[in-house]
């Protein structure tokens, strides 16, 4: 296949990306056993430039390729027919450029909802439909769920999203800023802001200090710890295990309050900026974080052990919402959810940098069910606490580093890609610049983009009352998907 292999956070000239004939690119994508990271179009005069990026997780490389498509092209043969991993990408491409992927098994809107859309239907005396949302009973984001059930059993769940599509990608091109980047998906503030800043720095080939890099990674791990603990509490709350819910909620607060002390925001807003970070972690703060994390680790250990000893909790978690590894691979589930299904993908380690190189993850035995999604969080919390402590140790030698180095101007006609493993999974940001060195296209892929379909598969043949438990286990982002 004709491609250029790049590393994470590497800038290349657009002219260095091989332009392949569209049909041959499609054929190669369809048979490739590498998973897609991106498949998106960009205006190119009277044509559309289609960029594709494949992830070679073993080598830690990203294979970028492109094709030029005539704007008058009406339709093409769908890749999804042969390779299901492209089903979301092709739907998105169709929605943005209107070129019909012929033979796509389920071509429906991704973000732009049509009132005329007909949901998948089952007929029969016993089947009934349950429609949930987009306005929900809890204070959560909007999404519509359509269940086809027979009695209590769910046969099919169809998920409709896009209710808060804000046109983030276009906004990014017009007026890129850290404030915008960290507001795209509020629960992954650090991951989004880090990916954005890295892309911006790559485009100008700016360097930032090691200390700033360390602080970013510490914040990223702390975000993971906080959200994972909060989710563990929410999972237990959904099965009415009150003790767990409250203990985890209290513990999570310890972590985010420490974040508040570091950056002035409990979610770390304003911490990361293009060129470095805005706030320092000094020795005193470092000690504070370490003692806080020891306390957190202690509580989480005790609570998790107590919860998993409770037979009522285990009977709810085990064998609920099973997604087999084959299904997960076919759908290209990524991040924590992928790992809970037995796919060992973690962009922190697959696209390793100097900091994660000497950190080690403990192996996780996936059971593919709600229990797996609970215990992967426990494992990752413990791992991340270890990581933070090690990263803080590395900080000691780097106290004198600058927090912020003035970033350089973007290099014209560049392409840069950044992958950050947020708590949900890989957050991919891609940016290109035009001839004047201005942003010409900004593309974001949240892990939820891959994983929403996994949720639909998880609830099949489960009780409809188990849906909230599955949903909480996946805990996918609506705004990260809707953009």
């Amino acid at each position, binding site marked *: 296949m004709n491609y250029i292999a790049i590393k994470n956070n590497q800038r290349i000239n657009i002219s260095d990306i091989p332009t392949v004939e569209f049909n041959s690119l499609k054929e190669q994508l369809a048979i490739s056993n590498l998973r897609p990271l991106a498949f998106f179009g960009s205006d190119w005069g009277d044509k559309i430039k289609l960029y594709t990026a494949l992830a070679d997780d073993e080598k830690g490389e990203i294979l970028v390729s492109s094709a030029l498509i005539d704007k008058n092209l009406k339709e093409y043969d769908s890749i999804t027919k042969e390779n299901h991993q492209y089903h979301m990408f092709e739907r998105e491409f169709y929605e943005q450029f209107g070129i019909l992927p012929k033979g796509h098994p389920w071509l429906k809107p991704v973000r732009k909802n049509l009132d005329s859309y007909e949901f998948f239907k089952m007929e029969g005396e016993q089947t009934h439909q349950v429609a949930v949302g987009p306005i929900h*009973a809890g204070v959560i984001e909007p999404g519509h769920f359509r269940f086809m059930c027979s009695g209590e059993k769910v046969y099919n769940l169809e998920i409709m999203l896009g209710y808060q599509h804000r046109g983030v990608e276009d906004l990014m091109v017009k007026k890129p800023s850290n404030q915008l980047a960290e507001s795209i998906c509020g629960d992954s503030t650090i991951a989004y802001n880090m990916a954005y800043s890295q892309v911006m720095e790559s485009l100008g080939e700016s360097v930032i200090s090691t200390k700033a890099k360390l602080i970013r990674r510490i914040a990223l791990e702390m975000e993971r710890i906080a959200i994972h603990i909060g989710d563990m509490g929410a999972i237990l709350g959904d099965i009415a295990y*009150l003790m767990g*819910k409250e203990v985890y909620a209290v513990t999570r607060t310890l972590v985010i309050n420490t974040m508040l002390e570091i950056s002035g925001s409990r979610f770390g807003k304003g911490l990361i900026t293009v060129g470095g970070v805005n706030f320092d972690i000094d020795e005193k703060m470092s000690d504070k974080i370490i003692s806080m994390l020891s306390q957190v680790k202690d509580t989480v250990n005790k609570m998790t052990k107590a919860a998993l000893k409770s037979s009522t909790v285990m009977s709810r978690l085990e064998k609920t919402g099973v997604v087999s590894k084959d299904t997960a691979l076919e759908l290209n589930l990524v991040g924590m959810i992928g790992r809970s299904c037995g796919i060992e993908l973690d962009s922190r380690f697959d696209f390793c940098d100097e900091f994660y190189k000497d950190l080690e993850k403990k192996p996780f035995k996936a059971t593919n069910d709600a229990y797996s999604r609970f215990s992967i969080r426990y494992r990752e919390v413990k791992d991340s606490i270890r990581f933070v402590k090690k990263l803080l140790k590395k900080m000691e030698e780097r106290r004198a580093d600058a927090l912020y180095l003035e970033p350089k101007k973007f290099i014209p006609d560049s392409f840069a890609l950044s992958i950050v493993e947020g708590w949900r999974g890989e957050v991919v940001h891609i940016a290109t610049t035009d001839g004047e060195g201005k942003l010409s296209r900004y593309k974001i892929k949240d892990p939820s983009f891959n994983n929403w379909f996994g949720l639909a598969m998880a609830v099949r043949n489960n009780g409809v009352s188990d849906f909230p438990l599955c949903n909480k286990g996946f805990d996918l982002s609506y705004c990260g998907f809707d953009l």
Partner: protein
Amino acid sequence: MENNLLISIVNFIILLIAPFFVIGIIKKTKAFWGGRYGVSIMQPLWDFLRLFKKRRVISTTTSWIFSIAPIVVLTTTLCAGLFAPMIKGVSIVDVEAAFIIFSYVLGFGKFFALVGAMDTGSSFEGMGASREACFTTIIEPAFFIILASTIALSGNYNFSSITNLVQNWGSFGVLITIIAVIALLVMLLSECSRVPVDDPTTHLELTMIHEVMILDNSGVDLALCTWANGIKMVILMGLIANFIIPNDLSLALSGALFLLIIFVLALIIGTLESGIARFRMSHVFEFIFVMCSFALVVASLAAVKMFGV
């Protein structure tokens, strides 16, 4: 006789007011186990009064059934409360075989709750109604068997004769009492939608049972529905108390013991809700079948005693 009248009046007042405090105590207990201060015990009462100030919002798809359902549910529950023995085993209306009227008046209210929920045409409420109906069909016969066999044992058909078990039958009565009380506890958790059968605090419509049936009720209607549910809880707790309390105690002692048992039951429910997770919907049936099997044990024990097999 005058004494009975006085007790009846006190009973009725308890029936009307106790629900708020029972729910308040349950919430306080849950707060305690969760390490929170929690809201005041009076809060359910304030919530109830607040709902009276609110407007009723009625869906345009509903018919008159939806509008009258809350009133019917409250009236039937109160009506059933008149037949149930409370302090000192005194029922306000004491007639022979009152437990049959009691069960069916409650059943009538349940029917209207179900029909009222289905009248909204909402898929949630239909789902909740189907779950509730399903559990009720198992609970009702079991409840009937327990009451019928214990009452038959005492020879007369007054509802209050469930208080005589321990005196009349000694250790045998104690055995039946223990089994019957456990069965009634299961019924209490299920009928009053508490954990592990239902989760009264959840906001997830798909998992609810009782709450989802009153999802469309607002203002006064909602107040009446929650009140009726609380009254039902107090009635069932009163039944359990009467199984336990011997009837030869003095009025003061018996009354105090009655209130104490209701208090302890509220503590037990609160603690249970803090310590265990809710069952999977399919396991709830197994849990309720526990009540059925215990009911059959009570029936066979009673038969052994009566016919001396």
